[in-house]
């Protein structure tokens, strides 16, 4: 879900995302085609409410029934891997995300709210839309600050501080280039980013990844506490882990900004021939902010102390009076 007030820059990001050769089948639902600006060479065909692109993506208008538009996409046999919904500038993105997630075949990945660095503070004080702009920011899993290049770093810093005070625990990303934005949204290295190396097409900012890996099952309670206290620099995390509480099953960790889930996989180990007991978690964030030492320290507590059961029993016996 992409939200943000009118003119914040949602469409600019979506246009860049559609044109980006990320190698994934995306469906982008927009309010109207008027603002969609895709290179004509990329358009395979245009049919009423749908524009099909040569890279396998489609762009559809929501029309007057989002439920119907979502349903038709979700039920397509060759449906998209991701649906990106552009909320209208006055929508509560949380409400629409909840609505969309009520469709049986869809799972909510994240709510990204775009804020215009130039105008967001004025908007947030406006009598007609102030409450709405603040609501949109508060709903965001990740806030993308747009037009920071227009404003300049000096003017931008106070805006970032203001957002951080307005939205506790905000996850902020300043003016990402297309591939960074794709990476943030889709949770994986895009083809372009891979081809061009970590830098991609964006020289101001790059994403870095930090990986945590253990052979032994993790302490579930400690892991949940750690995820909940990750620094704002971690914009995405993914992982497949074993937990001491149920070592026979794998759990999937998904994190986008402030939203995260740790869910038991329904399939058993033999299903996909991945018998490994290993737990792996990858954290992704802006290279300049992601601090490996801090993450090492945070994750240190999730690996249970290595105390063989026999010794533990012995220690316990010795404790007795």
């Amino acid at each position: 879900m992409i939200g943000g007030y009118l003119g914040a820059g949602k469409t600019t990001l979506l246009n860049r995302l559609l044109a980006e050769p990320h190698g994934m089948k995306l469906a982008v639902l927009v309010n109207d085609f008027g603002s969609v600006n895709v290179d004509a060479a990329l358009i395979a065909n245009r049919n009423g409410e749908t524009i099909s692109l040569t890279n396998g993506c489609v762009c559809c208008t929501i029309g007057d029934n989002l439920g119907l538009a979502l349903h038709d996409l979700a039920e397509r046999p060759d449906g998209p891997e991701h649906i990106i919904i552009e909320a209208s500038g006055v929508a509560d993105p949380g409400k629409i995300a909840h609505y969309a997630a009520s469709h049986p075949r869809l799972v909510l990945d994240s709510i990204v709210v775009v804020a215009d660095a130039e105008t967001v503070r004025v908007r947030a004080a406006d009598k007609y839309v102030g409450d709405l702009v603040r609501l949109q920011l508060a709903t965001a899993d990740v806030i993308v600050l747009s037009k920071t290049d227009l404003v300049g770093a000096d003017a931008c810093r106070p805006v970032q501080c203001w957002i951080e005070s307005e939205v506790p625990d905000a996850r902020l990303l300043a003016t990402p280039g297309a591939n960074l934005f794709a990476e943030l949204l889709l949770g994986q290295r895009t083809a372009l980013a891979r081809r061009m190396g970590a830098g991609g097409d964006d020289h101001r900012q790059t994403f870095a990844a930090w990986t945590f890996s253990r052979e032994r099952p993790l302490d579930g309670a400690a892991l949940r506490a750690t995820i909940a206290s990750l620094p704002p620099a971690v914009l995405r995390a993914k992982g497949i882990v074993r937990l001491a509480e149920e070592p026979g099953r794998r759990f999937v960790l998904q994190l986008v900004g402030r939203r995260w889930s740790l869910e038991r996989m329904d399939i058993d180990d033999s299903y996909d021939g991945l018998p490994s007991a290993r737990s792996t978690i990858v954290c992704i964030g802006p290279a300049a902010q992601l601090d490996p030492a801090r993450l090492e320290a945070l994750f240190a507590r999730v690996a249970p102390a290595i105390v063989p059961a026999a010794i533990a029993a012995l220690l316990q016996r010795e404790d007795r009076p």
Partner: protein
Amino acid sequence: MPGPVTVFSAKKIITMDASVGEATHVAVRDGIILEVGDVDDCAAWGPYILDDRFSDCVLIPGLIESHAHLLDGMLWAKSEYVGPVDRHDPSGKLREGLNNVPALIGRMKEIEARMADPTKPLIAWGVDPSLNDPITPITRHDLDQVSKTRPIFVLHTSCHIAYVNTATLALANYAAIKAPGVLRDASGTPTGELQEMASMMAAIRAVASDLIGGSTDAEQFYNFAKVAQARGATTIVDGGGSTYFEPAFLAAALAVTSVPDFPARIVAHHNGITVPSAQDMIKFAAMLKGEGNDKLVFQGVKILLDGSNQGFTGRLRPPGYLGTGVNGLWNRAPDELRQLVPALHDAGLQIVAHCNADQAAEMFIEAVTLAQARKPRFDHRHFIVHGQLLDESLLRRMVSLGIHATLFSNHLYYWGEFHRAHTFGAFRAAAMNPAATALRLGVVVAAHSDAPVSPVDPLLTLWCAANRVTSAGRVLGPGERVSAYDALKMMTFNAAYLLHRDHEIGSIRVGKRADFAVLAHDPLAVDPMTIKDIPVQATILGGRVFPIVG
């Protein structure tokens, strides 16, 4: 060659004309009023046919429903009404409200028993458990009592919730569906309640696909007009959600309304609801210019500014909704409205603006102020629809800009107690829909039902404006009650004025259309609390008598 002259006699004719208030006879030829007076006055036009079947009745100008939606006609056409509120169906028969689950199930069993094809889904609408006594949820177990094999789909009056039985759950494969909108019981089985369109879409696709997509069925237009006619309306507004700009829909609408027995006039607003841009709105309005017929005209472009007060989505000025202080949602961004309203105004269009709560109205007033500064226009008759929390300062600004209003007076009755307890609190509930203040300040005010939100029943709406009584019997803001005469004027002349039709309809005057409602009693003479119960005997539309069937 002029047609024959018909003279209708009545116990009393209330003209709602400023110059001549009362009469006993009205002469009509070719759908137009020739004379209003006594029988001798009418005889001046030569030989006539005397129609005295209403000589014991009271004739008033045909009532005007100034805001409703064609969806109402579609729901009557495609589904069975089973809601908790009394509604008259298209035949004029009263469908009494079913305000508990056993009564609902009983009625649905009767409907089911009459259905010949055992595979045909039973589609119903209008339920609202919050108005039931006791308030209990509707589940698949309840609906399974109606049928275990026939798919059942019951739509909530808000259209945001549906209730289905086990057969529908199975047909649409809800067992495999994991979604928050599909409510589940302790065992994990769906309860049958589906919240929001996204979660009910599988069921709609499987059993009730008639309810979505632009139907061109004639029946929806007939039902829309018949429901209104049964309650004395001769003109009803289709409030801007329809797609007359689509050739097939327009052709269907023109065909059905040109049939002589089509029972009401439709004034359709241009669609500024699902049409996103000013450019397209202006283009479609230009396309429809000159289209229409005697019973279908296009007037005004309808735009939405906010949501609904009972849904907590109206845009309020501070202090916001009762208790929480939260505010509702804009339908269009204020920055967009500052462009859109002047663009429509410049294009010479009349703007019909849905502003449910006061901040939305303030925004519209601000946008019209911009438009008037850029290009002053006289007699544009832009008007606010709902305007439930207008106050004296907003109304005075409206007067100075030429903005008028149709108020949602029915809310006082249906949701008055709810607003007092949950949305607005005591003061604002008592100040809702301030018809008396608006009239005093010179705003041309009408009132409406917003059907299907509340039933099309102009006499009930008139009664609400005159009495301001809630369903629990409490009078909200007695100072805003209007006289029966003013209330009747709201539902006739004033509504005609808002629709730019006051030269044709809205009063009984020589030269105007012969559109009348025939009442059993004089609405200006009875106790105002009984106005809603006055039987409607017939309507007369362009001189043609349409009896009440039910």
